[in-house]
């Protein structure tokens, strides 16, 4: 889609915006960790070792170094679980956002381009979905689907669809009135051609920005579902699920079990927020926050 020159251009603009650049670097590191966890993790992330439960990590002295960040209540290596969890959490985030972006684009473009009763119907549907706080909707969908990682992806994907539909729709509404669309129509271009050649490429910028920011939200929501025991099923290493048993670990004095998975979540979300905010500033300086 991008010519190499344009890609270089985009990258150059991105590096000029410091926060976007930092976010980009964090994201790249995270993706690398997600692709190569087996080279990075010191231990098997699901192997239990009850004799080694709730052991502290490197701060407690040399003899604890085999588990750099300590162990959890089943004696599993926390660092290894965080590293493998990167893969789980990032894939939930990306797949959920892919679902919501595709669905949202479809609904938003149809709604904005054709208008009329279809627009009214789809936007009322979106209104209804907006009547639920997002995590509540996700929990309700999970209650219907039952727990599991794939189901969490679907639930979060559905939850983020209405927002994407609105973003796409309002972008389409602007494009639709442009003169070149008029010209295309006068030349006899089909709706499909106008949408794919003229509407979609021109609404891509806000969609990409929102997709980035939504990925941050999706990772947080996936972690929340995991924390509530409705997301990834044990023993899958997932950041949110790692925190779900940690209240007990805290009272047992094992602060590390509750601390590090949260830091991992925060890093991933922070990186995506920085990147998303930075891209938004570049694309629409008026929205700068």
């Amino acid at each position, binding site marked *: 889609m991008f010519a190499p020159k344009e890609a270089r251009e985009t990258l150059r603009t991105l590096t000029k915006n410091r926060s976007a650049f930092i976010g980009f670097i964090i994201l790249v590191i995270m993706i690398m960790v997600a692709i190569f966890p087996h080279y990075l993790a010191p231990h098997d992330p699901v192997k239990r070792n009850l004799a080694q439960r709730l052991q502290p990590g490197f701060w407690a002295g040399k003899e604890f170094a085999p588990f750099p960040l300590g162990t959890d209540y089943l004696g599993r290596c926390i660092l290894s679980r965080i590293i493998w969890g990167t893969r789980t959490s990032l894939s939930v985030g990306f797949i959920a956002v892919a679902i919501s972006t595709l669905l949202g684009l479809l609904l938003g473009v149809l709604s904005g381009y054709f208008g009329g009763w279809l627009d009214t119907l789809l936007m009322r549907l979106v209104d209804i979905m907006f009547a639920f706080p997002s995590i*509540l909707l996700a929990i309700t969908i999970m*209650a*219907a689907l039952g727990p599991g990682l794939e189901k969490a992806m679907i639930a979060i994907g559905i939850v983020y669809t209405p927002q994407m539909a609105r973003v796409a729709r309002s972008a389409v509404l602007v494009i639709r009135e442009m003169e070149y669309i008029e010209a295309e129509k006068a030349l006899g271009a089909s709706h499909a051609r106008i949408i794919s050649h003229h509407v979609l490429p021109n609404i891509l910028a806000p969609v990409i920005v929102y997709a980035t920011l939504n990925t941050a939200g999706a990772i947080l929501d996936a972690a929340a579902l995991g924390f509530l025991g409705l997301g990834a099923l044990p023993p899958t290493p997932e950041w949110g699920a790692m925190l779900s048993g940690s209240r007990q670990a805290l009272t047992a004095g094992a602060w590390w079990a509750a601390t590090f998975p949260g830091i991992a979540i925060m890093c991933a979300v922070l990186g995506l927020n920085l990147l998303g905010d930075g891209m938004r500033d570049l694309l629409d300086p008026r929205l700068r926050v």
Partner: protein
Amino acid sequence: MKRLLLIFPVLFGVSVVVFFLVRLAPGDPAKILAGEHASLEYIQATRTKWGLDRPLYVQYLIWLRNALSGDLGTSIATHDPVLKEILGRFPATFELSLVAMVIAILVGVTAGIISAVKQYSIFDYLSMTGALFGISMPVFWLGLMLMLIFGLHLNLLPISGRLSPDVTLRTVTGLYLLDALLTLNGRAFVDALAHLILPGIALATIPTALIARMTRSSMLEIIRQDFIRTERAKGLPERMVIYKHALRNALIPIVTVIGMEFGLLLGGAILTETVFAWPGLGRYTVDAVYARDYPAIQGAVLFIAFVFVMVNLVTDLLYAAINPRIRYR
């Protein structure tokens, strides 16, 4: 007026979604109602008794009719009316959300104004970095960290529940702070307040961050406008310019964000209540999901969505009231 009428189709749609979504769940509701070891005959009898053998849309209409007359069904887990349980727990959630909102407005608006007035200062830099971290943190993790530091490590504040077991309080409204004031119970007031601090801060973090960012950008936009320059040129003291003229105009988008955040607090409360064992509606919903208590899930989700819609409506109306350029027809 039109805005008011619009909520009816939305609420209707919400009820459809809640009913059918929950009924989509795997498992035969009659079996769950009858209990795990019920005989086939008993399951069949239960099915007839609860009308579960009738077509789904008929069941929906009956459920809707009952819900409209204030009957949200009976909880499978406790055999109590769902509405009674919800109303019993709602004050806890409401009180927590109110406290979080007060914290968020006080801290968020203040930080936003200072950041805007002293743009690019150390304070601006620190508070905006803080805001970025605030929106990037999982609420439940922040709750755990607060619990670890202030509850377990420093042993300063209680980490679960609304009152200490040895403190008694006669409930009037269900809002413990208010109840303590009404019954002139100083000890309970202090105790309830102490219990509110950690969950309140955890719940307030995201709204605080968003309000601070919104206030800052809104103020920056206003400060640059001509009429502010005029006010300054007139020789008006800077403080007057900021608080009397700039802030009043900047307030419009801020109020919208505050309204939106208040609704979102209800969602955040689900997680915060789980961490702090807070006996509110969020915790109730999650417990209902664990227990597959379908009438309770339907009732709680419907109730929360209803409150959420109402809060959004009030926000929209407030928005129109403070911004004469917008009028709903």
